[in-house]
């Protein structure tokens, strides 16, 4: 438990730094376990309040239960929810059969970029973790994106001690990653410790499968698992050597690297 409180203290510090330094700040919420823990940490940092909008980039292909859960928590916790959608691409019939990277770029990356541009957000808080996949391991806590939302991972500013990059040229924005040091197990241990409500898609409901990572319905598949509770999940993760995102089609080949350089979450 002590190690979770250490993570919490660090994340809360980062969230408060973000709130102090960015006038136009928002948090991305995908309703998955990570960004929901992040949302909970925001309530910790701001003593029950969430003083910035929560953005959801809706691809229209999300699993319906996720949308219900989103609207319920938004109501119960008094959240300022902002939903963005790349309507143009959807009207043109964009879907995963046109190519997964093509579809993710159009509906998620471009959907996000449109949302950021329209609202002029200069700081965006995301729930990415370093242990999820290789490119995320190289992120800073405060990571600059250029005018096109692109990430230059080769030339990142130094990040020293608890001092983060909070100044930036006009037209650019900063991605803020308070969960960078958390692992998948930490997330579930924390959900248990704090009793955070999560979507039951993560649990086996009798058919011997569950989702380990949530995305769009067509591109996310459940894994074989009989974990029926948070304790079961934690126990399972202690022994697994299967990658967390193995059910996520976008990770195949160089998918995530290409997506993330271009501004994907």
């Amino acid at each position: 438990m002590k190690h979770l409180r250490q993570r919490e203290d660090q994340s809360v510090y980062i969230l408060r730094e973000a709130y102090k330094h960015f006038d136009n700040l928002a948090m991305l919420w995908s309703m998955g376990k990570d960004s929901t823990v992040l949302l909970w940490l925001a309530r910790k940092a701001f003593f029950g309040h969430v003083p910035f909008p929560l953005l959801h980039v809706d691809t229209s292909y999300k699993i319906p239960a996720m949308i219900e859960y989103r609207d319920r928590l938004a109501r119960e916790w008094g959240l300022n929810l902002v939903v963005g959608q790349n309507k143009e691409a959807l009207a043109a019939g964009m879907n995963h059969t046109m190519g997964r990277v093509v579809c993710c770029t159009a509906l998620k990356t471009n959907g996000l970029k449109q949302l950021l541009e329209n609202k002029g957000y200069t700081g965006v808080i995301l729930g990415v973790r370093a242990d999820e996949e290789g490119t995320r391991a190289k992120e800073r806590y405060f990571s600059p994106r250029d005018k096109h939302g692109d990430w230059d991972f080769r030339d990142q500013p130094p990040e020293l001690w608890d001092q983060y990059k909070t100044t930036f040229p006009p037209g650019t924005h900063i991605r803020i990653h308070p969960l960078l040091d958390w692992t998948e197990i930490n997330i579930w241990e924390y959900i248990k410790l704090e009793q955070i409500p999560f979507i039951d898609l993560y649990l086996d409901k009798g058919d011997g499968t569950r989702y380990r990572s949530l995305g769009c319905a067509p591109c996310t598949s459940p894994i074989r698992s009989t974990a029926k509770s948070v304790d079961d999940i934690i126990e399972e993760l202690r022994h697994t050597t299967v990658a967390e995102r193995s059910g996520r089609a976008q990770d195949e080949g160089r998918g995530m690297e290409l997506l993330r350089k271009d501004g994907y979450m």
Partner: protein
Amino acid sequence: MSETAKPSENLNIVIVGHVDHGKSTLLGRLYADTGSLPDGKLEKVQAICKQQGKEFEYAFLFDAFLEEQEQGITIDTARTFFMWKGRQYIIIDAPGHKEFLKNMISGAARAEAALLLIDALEGVREQSKKHGYLLSLLGVRQFAVVVNKMDLVAYRQDVFDGIEKEYREFLGQFKAVPSQFIPVSAKLGDNIANRSEQMAWYGGPTVLETLGAFKKEAARSEQPLRLPVQDVYKFDARRIITGRITAGRLKVGDHLVFSPSNKRANIRTVEAFNIEPQPTEGQAGQSIGVTLDEQIFVERGEVASHQEHLPLVSTAFRANLFWLGKRPLEKGRKYLLRVATKEVDCEVASIHRIIDTMDLAQQQSSNSISKNQVAELTLRTKAPVAFDLSASFEATGRFVLVDEYDIAGGGIITELVHDDQEFLREEARRRDFAWVKGEVTVEDRAQQYGHRAAVVLITGGRHTGKSFLARKLEGRLVADGRHAYLLDGENLRRGLDADLSEEERGQTAEMARRYGEVARLLTDTGLIVVSTTNPFGLAYREASQAIRTLVHPAPVIAVHMSKSEEESPPSTDVVLTGPTDFDAATSRILEELKRRGVLAQAIGAKPVFQYSI
């Protein structure tokens, strides 16, 4: 072999060393040998190697970007994780290539312990020394030296001993002592997880055993309290002061002193979300929130402590600094200094020497510090800062410099540099601590008057119209319903200063001190004090500095008047040059008072202060 016991703690480890000395290989081996690799990862990398027609190496496992594998060097700091004997390790892989020093520093700044790699065949190289020195500068005191590629020197003990001797001597020059020197072959797995049969002469621990022996950073809770204020929230009825305790502990009822403002109050509650029962104390490492029994105005950047162990306060300190900026650090240019949560403009007062990290020899002094150089220097800040020496307090003893938009350098504070305000600051501190208060608080007065107390200080040479402007401003403020008072130095001369001899009255220091203390009394009554530096003649720069120190933390609006272009004293808010339009000048000062939150935006309106009351 996977060690899956429940983690009881995390430990951040950085791996540093010269390029090509085998950091990524060591990491690959650690992961493979502890059973920490996901299924298929090894096979995936092996397939890529085959496709690119090269021999598989453990190093490739960690080079997540394909470009990197093509270049064969790690580009940026990457975090990876593994579990061993109940402890979760976050491994920060920091590149050794010279141009990526900033990434190595970013990595090491997050670390609680380090492994420093040296190639047995190549021996101690430039980056081995630089990294060793920087680890020490960054405060990473726990580290071991791993002598890699022992297989390439036929596992000879004399080669290992030679490297140990040379490197220990180097480290000894700045009193760094590694916990261990370990001879290994990361490629073949000698002394990583398993003991080497090839090196029976080595009786010390393996790399994994060494990691296990690193101690979790000693809690700093036994030190005196340091709580740098991060922010003040008022989302609901509670006015919560937040921050991360960097040293010591606090509890409900504790008397806190905020430096440098010297404001004081007792902790009423410790606030938290979803913690039952509500906590009543906090200790080093925690991000907390407290409410106070008195609604004092404190802001981000102040450091809360107990009265018996105050931090240092000055406008200057000496430091060791490393520079990573694209353009050199130059004397005379402005930078933003960040110490804990305080941000203040500063400049380099002097560069004492550039340190050659290869031989640590004295180098010629210089007017600038280039990228990747380390130097000893003195920094001077625009306003007083609360800090500590790095030898006694880590978090409040280090700083970064921001050049334009980027953090471009960092360092540790080695010495307080006394400035000319030191004695007055001490006087103000002693006086404030002993100040006897009535029942009426500063906020009560502000509410009653509709404005905060402040000092408008008009400086300038003779016959520039200072007195005329001061009288006009006082008149305008009172006509608008403000509580203002013109404090003329002449009046002090004939009364309070009547005991002084003519000679004594010529001494700016004592005259300014008396004037400042009277201004302090008046601001405590809630007044806006309008004053000129007339009594000090041309010594107005010295006098205005002293007055600022004594009335601190009341806001000082500095107005400088001159007949022609000239340099204004530091921190001037309003500059009036040439023939003055006094009505326009008065309006500008009123605007400045509004901007600083002293006056409400509209007359008659309840004041909306920048801070919550």
